[in-house]
């Protein structure tokens, strides 16, 4: 693993600031469209900040650089969050922010590989990412490459059989270069994940499937960073998963306190208000 690009990406900007910047960009994109999966984006911002500014190796000016760590957005509707992150990382130009979701944009509302630099796969048909990720991990291992493959999936995707097929196969083939990130925001389309289809005991499940599993507060940056470090440091050919318990709308209290739904409604005048509230919490 080369240290250069990752060290540069880390720079002197704090991870708190990165996460805040990601939240702000996501809100600005939501304002452009008047909609978007903003609750999810605000919830996952800390994990994405740690991923792109601490854990991953990549070259901003060459998103297809062969040596990069792969980051797969299985949960395609989280695209707004990844676009914000890719802009923050310099992979996507910030000028394009105002085109989010527009007809001629490179940032469609659901992530698509053919549209966006840095978007590895077309997710959105949920439950597909982990299988693709394990195939890429097998491919990288065959090539002798040291890169990791990260797959970001949602708690809803835990319901798909394909997720657990992939989990078994990855463990069987000893894919130590595979790191699965599960956003446990306790939300799905029809309601609370725990009320709909209980995944518990979740850590025990992953472990029983042969994975190294951690579960941390996904909005506690220190814990998130430590989990990424621990996942990369696991010795032996075992796939790794980190379950992040996150809070939808994190960082914008009046949205956090609203009755949370899969598609959080934000009134037209509330985008500005949300940006204002976020501003008050800007890291020092």
């Amino acid at each position: 693993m080369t240290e250069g690009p990752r060290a540069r990406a880390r720079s002197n900007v704090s991870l708190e600031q990165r996460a805040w910047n990601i939240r702000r960009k996501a809100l600005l994109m939501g304002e452009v469209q008047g909609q978007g999966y903003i609750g999810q984006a605000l919830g996952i911002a800390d994990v994405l900040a740690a991923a792109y500014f601490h854990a991953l190796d990549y070259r901003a000016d060459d998103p297809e650089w062969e040596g990069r760590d792969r980051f797969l957005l299985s949960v395609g509707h989280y695209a707004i969050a990844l676009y914000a992150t890719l802009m923050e990382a310099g992979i996507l130009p910030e000028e394009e922010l105002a085109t989010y979701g527009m007809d001629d944009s490179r940032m469609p509302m659901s992530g698509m590989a053919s549209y966006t630099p840095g978007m590895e796969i077309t997710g959105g048909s949920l439950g597909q990412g982990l299988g693709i990720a394990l195939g890429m991990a097998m491919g990288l291992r065959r090539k002798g490459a040291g890169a990791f493959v990260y797959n970001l999936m949602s708690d809803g995707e835990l319901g798909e059989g394909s997720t657990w097929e992939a989990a078994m196969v990855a463990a069987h083939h000893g894919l130590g270069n595979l790191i699965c990130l599960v956003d446990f925001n306790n939300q799905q389309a029809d309601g609370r994940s725990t009320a709909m289809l209980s995944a518990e005991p979740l850590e025990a499940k992953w472990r029983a499937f042969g994975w190294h599993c951690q579960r941390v507060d996904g909005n506690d940056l220190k814990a998130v960073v430590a989990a990424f470090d621990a996942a990369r440091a696991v010795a032996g050919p075992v796939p790794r998963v980190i379950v992040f318990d996150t809070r939808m709308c994190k960082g914008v209290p009046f949205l956090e306190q609203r009755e949370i739904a899969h598609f959080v409604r934000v009134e037209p005048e509330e985008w500005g208000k949300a940006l204002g509230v976020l501003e008050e919490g800007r890291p020092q």
Partner: protein
Amino acid sequence: MTSASMARKYKARQVQVGQRSTTSAMIASLAAEGYDTVQAPFGHALVELARRDERVLGLTADLGKYTDLHVFAEAMPDRFYQMGMAEAVLMSAAAGLAREGFMPFATTYAVFAARRAYDFIAMAIAEENLPVRIVCALPGLTTGYGPSHQATEDLAIFRGLPNLTIVDPCDAVDIAQMVPAIAAHDGPVYCRLLRGRVPVVLTRHKPDYRFELGKAQLIREGRDVLVIATGLMTMRALDAAEALAKDGIDVAVLHVPTIKPLDRATITEEAGKAGRLVVTAENHTVVGGLGEAVATTLLTAGVTPAFRMIGLPDAFLEAGALPTLHDMYGISTDRVAARIRSWL
């Protein structure tokens, strides 16, 4: 990522019409100016059916709110099953319930039934000819979310499946009336669904219209062109016919809500009337849908009028605003009218 399919990688979208518009991916209703609408006709019709028939159950894979099944879930919580986001087991479980004498209505999006759950539908449900009703939102091009959500080939996939009846309703009238009709049918059914605020189209053009399973019905007479349409394209055809009438072009519209079994007799009879251009119109790829089914029917019957097809191209479609996409792919009212005009 070197294949030709990635050739368009990272290029800005090539939008043909007008200025930018935003993705109306989450719209609850299809833009249909001038029509009254009904809220969640499927959910309400299912509740009504379930009050009369205690075998009726509702199942979904995390899309109750998005398939209008929440109306049923709220009215009859003890007859509703949330399966989590697991389309394969949704279909297997529906098959199991049907085996035990129940009448499950299973809902998801059309893409996930057709693509992910297909084998389960084929073997657990269709091969056994079980009375499972699969009701799916977002048919064809009714979301701007791109290929992951656009069910452009569901009819082609399901037409190949023996035993399966396939319905593509046009409006709230069709949906409300198809629910008891498919319940009365002994065998598996796949229905495309329009959800949310659904326009009332057919009775406005033909006040005595009633949905009949397996029947094509002439909604509008016309001397110059016969449009054979299904699903929401019947609405487009009727609207285009009104526009074309102003230019003195007289367009008949034959509505074919049941795709399989196809009402060959009515289609052959109407298309056999001399002197009319025959145009099929479907919210689906031109491969394997209504157009090809009609073409086969006519050619087999020895009826060979001038024939054109309106449908989606054989391609993965773009993401974007629905009105933009409907214009781009030729299924908006304006484009339908323009194309018919160009063929005369």
